[in-house]
């Protein structure tokens, strides 16, 4: 028997206090019935004796202390999952908004998930070819990895994410593939860009969209990415699919988290974000991965915009500490018309070493990768020196390095959003660039590979 309470004592959006409750438990889902008959949702944040503090998932507008009723449902917030979710569009709370029927649930899953036992994780080691050289060649993505894109306002992260979603594939493998896309507080236009791109390439039929737009309630954003991840877990580990999860924009999520924390009057951490933001983000990001004995996988590409392009801002900072690397977009490269404007030096894929090399990509991958990094890094330093002191101040080697850095950006990085380079093409492009440097400088590559792959003119 579910009890109905008409004892709402306090509503301070997004929090609400309900009195004289009995048997209510922490994290339980509640329904609020408005006088108009409309149903809203909330979850229990704290129970102290017979008083429950709940957090609303939607706006508080229209809640009336005397007439609104609250019911506690005895379970946490759940998502109805089924294979029929593919091709459908849901709102941030998991209800269909594409005019189609409700999902006939195979199961109801707690959206918070459970921590994955590290002893049952399978280490991600399968190379995913994204067709983007700056990623495949230098910051390789592997299946089951969480690799965020650190972007900034006005940078083309959406185009890059769509390109990855479109081109990503595991070489020589025909497993079923799905995309779960969570729009968290982004504009209608940005969301439509993704959906249209999925439509254009036919990917829409294997895509599940959860959409919380900028105009939707901010508190709902706490649930949206978790809805998406729950759907992804179902598809990956119950339906054996290879799932790519794109969440955009994490910054909006973190801001919603801060809003609720402030309402709860918690001691704020850096820049007002709650002290537990690391843990909170981790419980989402860590849901990516592979499990021993399961075919499916969840690969995650969260997108976040760095406020003021500042990588040390708490949102990118905490994200970087959890995720397995990051792809960083550069405003400087963007201004110079480099597409995609990936700044390869601060970008990183932590899992690349296990996903490249003989049998995965090619034997020379690791060495050339390090050489390209080192060369580009030195070339950029040389160019900086050149702007201060003029070209004459550079040594002969440094001049070559400066030229190398220029060509590297123009040829290797600047491939455009429509070019899909195979890993062979990417590696060979790298070798062609290394030709610019003196052979004795190629210290990071084994001599036998230089023999074998360095193009002779």
């Amino acid at each position, binding site marked *: 028997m579910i009890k109905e309470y008409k004892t709402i004592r306090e509503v301070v959006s997004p929090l609400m206090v309900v009195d004289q409750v009995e048997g209510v438990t922490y*994290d339980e889902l509640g329904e609020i019935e408005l006088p108009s008959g409309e149903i809203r949702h909330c979850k229990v944040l704290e129970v102290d004796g017979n008083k429950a503090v709940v957090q609303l998932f939607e706006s508080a507008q229209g809640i009336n202390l005397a007439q609104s009723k609250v019911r506690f449902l005895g379970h946490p917030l759940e998502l109805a999952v089924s294979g029929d979710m593919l091709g459908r569009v849901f709102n941030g709370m998991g209800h269909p908004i594409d005019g189609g029927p409700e999902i006939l649930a195979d199961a109801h899953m707690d959206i918070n998930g459970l921590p994955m036992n590290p002893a049952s994780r399978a280490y991600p080691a399968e190379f995913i070819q994204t067709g983007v050289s700056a990623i495949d060649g230098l910051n390789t993505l592997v299946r089951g990895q969480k690799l965020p894109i650190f972007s900034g306002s006005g940078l083309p992260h959406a185009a890059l994410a769509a390109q990855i979603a479109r081109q990503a594939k595991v070489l020589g493998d025909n497993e079923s593939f799905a995309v779960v896309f969570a729009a968290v507080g982004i504009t209608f236009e940005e969301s439509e860009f993704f959906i249209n791109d999925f439509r254009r390439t036919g990917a829409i039929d294997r895509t599940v969209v959860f959409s919380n737009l900028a105009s939707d309630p901010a508190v709902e954003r706490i649930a949206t990415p978790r809805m998406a991840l729950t759907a992804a877990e179902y598809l990956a580990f119950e339906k054996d699919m290879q799932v790519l999860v794109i969440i955009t924009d994490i910054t909006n999520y973190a801001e919603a988290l801060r809003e609720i924390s402030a309402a709860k009057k918690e001691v704020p951490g850096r820049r007002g974000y709650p002290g537990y933001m*690391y843990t909170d983000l*981790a*419980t989402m990001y*860590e849901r990516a991965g592979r499990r021993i004995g399961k075919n499916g996988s969840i690969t995650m590409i969260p997108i976040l915009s760095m406020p003021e392009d500042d990588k040390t801002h708490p949102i990118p900072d905490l994200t970087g500490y959890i995720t397995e690397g990051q792809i960083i977009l550069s405003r400087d490269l963007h201004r110079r018309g480099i597409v995609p404007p990936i700044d390869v030096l601060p970008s990183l894929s932590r899992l690349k070493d296990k996903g490249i090399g003989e049998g995965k990509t090619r034997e020379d991958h690791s060495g050339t990768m390090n050489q390209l990094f080192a060369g580009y890094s030195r070339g950029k330093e040389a160019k900086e020196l050149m702007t201060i002191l003029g070209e004459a101040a550079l040594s002969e080697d440094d001049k070559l390095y400066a030229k190398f850095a220029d060509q590297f950006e123009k040829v290797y990085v600047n491939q455009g959003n429509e070019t899909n380079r195979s890993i062979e093409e990417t590696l060979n492009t790298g070798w062609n660039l290394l030709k610019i440097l003196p052979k004795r400088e190629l210290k990071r590559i084994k001599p036998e590979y230089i023999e074998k792959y360095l193009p002779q003119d």
Partner: protein
Amino acid sequence: MSGTITKVSGPLVEAIGLADANVSDVVRVGKQRLIGEILNVKGEVASIQVYEETSGIGPGAVVETTGYPMSVELGPGMLENIYDGIQRPLPEIRAIAGELIARGTEVPSLNREKKWDFVPVAKPGDKLGPGDVLGTVQETSAILHKIMMPVGLTGEVVSIESGQHTVEETIAVIKTEKGETKELNMIQRWPVRIPRPYARKQVPAKPMNSGQRIIDTLFPIAKGGTAAVPGPFGSGKTVVQHQLAKWSDVDIVIYIGCGERGNEMTDVLMEFPELVDPRSGQPLMKRTVLIANTSDMPVAAREASIYTGITIAEYFRDMGYDVAVLADSTSRWAEALREMSGRLEEMPGEEGYPAYLASRLAQYYERAGVVECLGSEGRKGSVTAIGAVSPPGGDISEPVSQATMRIVKVFWALDSSLAYARHFPAINWLTSYSLYMDTLGKWYKEQFGEQYTANRAKAMSILQEESELQEIVRLVGQDSLSEADRLTMETAKQIREDFLQQNAFVDEDAFSSYAKQYRLLDMILKCDEECRKALEKGAPLEKLMVLPAKEKIARAKMVTEDMVDSEFTAICEELAKQAEEAAAGGEE
């Protein structure tokens, strides 16, 4: 003894009716029987921190105390295992609950079924005190586990059993001085927050050989010492920690994954059984205990995880082993402390961290050290504590870094600009330090003669000089430097690229013996010397910069250990010849 819950707020639960329970006692919460610990008691109300997710717990639910504080079980079966923050074996949780960690899973820390071959050392009639060895068990092919008399027990051996026993079976009967008889099995319990006792503490005097050139040669750590590895994300903290766990010349490694990535623990789990310890020839996993509280696991257990780890380390130390405890990352532990402190509504200190942060950190690192163990054997053991620190934004002015720096003696500062240039390990040679250099100097001298420390000093001064010269180059360009200075820059570059850079993912390079480290640095410095001589004789600098032998020096780190002597000698000879030729050419 049971009480009733009155309030639930995340991992913090309040209960009444626990008047007899002690502070720090472990309790079981709700019908899910979640594990918790009493933090403080105010009048009737006890505040409890729950180590598992409290979803579904509400007022009215039952709380039972177990009557003992947060403890670990010590005995055979810990090595090769992976535990969560409160010492529950994760593989067994997986066997019971599947891939995800379900709540309230009760699994004993030590396997109760497995039989160990107990070989007695003590005989009936022996008078034994705390720490004396009763007998041994070959726990893994690498480690002999000594079953010791528990702390606080003195008496005479009445009987002692040999042969196959489970950890719970009686292996010895002791008659105490008071005439009581005590049956002992192989399990000892110890509260994690209390350091295990020892006879005497000593000053660390031997280095821990890590096989990492920048660490061993420039910034060594002593066995029984403390070190911190701070660095922003992506600077390679975890790789440094993994390298230390792999190659350090200690007997036992305790690796604590505290609030870090799940895949990193999986990586260790998969890789360590395959890797072979270069000293013992045994798989590395045979000497390793893993503690995992990954970032998605409950935050309260994160606080406990580092204590669980160091208590296990102390137990092995008491057997006379050298143990290294690697905690990755202490910042997450501090954040867990902050979160609980916030929920307890304590007055916050700096950046919301509790005021007792620094003292807790100090207490933790102080549990490291070289000790004379309890027991009449006079065993010596050590615990070396190395903690990663993850400062927000890489800015070490924050409280956790600062509090850590006040305690630890070695500081390996990771630098993101080095990481961007793919200079790994990205330990900055200008800002890092080791305060053990003086105490260890004697040891180095005894082992390798005067030249070792002299080379180190010279390398450091060249690197220092380089940074000053770089300032000048940045202002007025390379041409303004004298030829000697340009040679210094070149040598510094060689030290950086050919010596300090070390690739953890290439077999030949991942581990360097002292001999190889010494010869490699010596060769680079000899090269500098030869070039300088040739320069004085009038050899053109351009020619010296590109001596063909230099390319061989650059690849010298890839020479396998057994070939070091012959190949390095050959390179040195070649180099001397080429430098002379250059000088001769210059004179013509």
